[in-house]
């Protein structure tokens, strides 16, 4: 971001104000995503919390029985289905929330302890916690002076 000079005597400060406005317009536009793009898989993110990997995925409308998860030492697969049918007896005016059927695999950066993987779904967000395999845990190495 550029510095805005707010000098009262500066005859060109109108341009500063204009640039400020333009910056704001671009920033607003950049931050505004429309509903037009329909995605066919849940958006996900993967985080590293030192002792485990945490995967979160947006799965609005899916309950615990609609999601299947499988894991190997180095990968995780989530799959599920959301039915996009109109409720019984209703006529549809607008349908942006499509039916969704997906299977997504993630390669993990290090080995995980498959037996300790746990998953929960809350407010339409799936969270999978994958504790790292003892092999992948960071180990502190002390430096000795000689």
């Amino acid at each position: 971001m550029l510095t805005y000079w707010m000098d009262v005597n500066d005859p060109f400060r109108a341009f500063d104000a204009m640039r400020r406005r333009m910056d704001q317009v671009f920033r607003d536009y950049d931050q505004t995503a429309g509903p037009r793009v329909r995605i066919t898989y849940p958006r996900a993110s993967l985080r590293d919390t030192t002792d485990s990997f945490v995967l979160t995925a947006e799965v609005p409308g899916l309950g615990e029985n609609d999601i299947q998860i499988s894991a190997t030492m180095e990968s995780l697969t989530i799959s599920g289905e959301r039915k996009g049918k109109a409720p019984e007896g209703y006529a549809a005016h607008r349908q942006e929330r499509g039916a969704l059927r997906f299977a997504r695999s993630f390669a993990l950066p290090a080995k995980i302890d498959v037996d300790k993987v746990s998953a929960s779904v809350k407010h339409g967000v799936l969270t999978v916690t994958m504790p790292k395999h003892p092999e992948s845990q960071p180990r502190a190495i002390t430096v000795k002076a000689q």
Partner: protein
Amino acid sequence: MSQDQNLAPKTESAAEPTTTRPVVAPTVDIYENEREYLILADLPGVPTDGVRIRFENGELSLDATRENGETGEIIGSEIVVADYRRLFRIPETVNSDAIDAKLQNGVLHLVLPKAGKARPRQISVKAN
């Protein structure tokens, strides 16, 4: 720029935003039967108290704030922690006092009951 059509009109002031959270329009379904309108909106990550629904001047505004509870170093992320906002024009036949909302699995169910049909009125003709 057509993407902006469903969002609240931006104010004309050059006020700087105090948060850098983006605002996105949630995807919605709108259904109707003879008794009510039903709006379904995808609001992943929004707790029940994070939803604000306001009805004013024939417009229903839906605002929702996402929880920001994730920790750890990001390896990869497609999720945008955003606020949701969308406006709906509501026909006058809706009984705005009886609007009902519930949040289930990250999906908002908004029920807008139609008002009872205006009773047909009989006009009597008077003889002079």
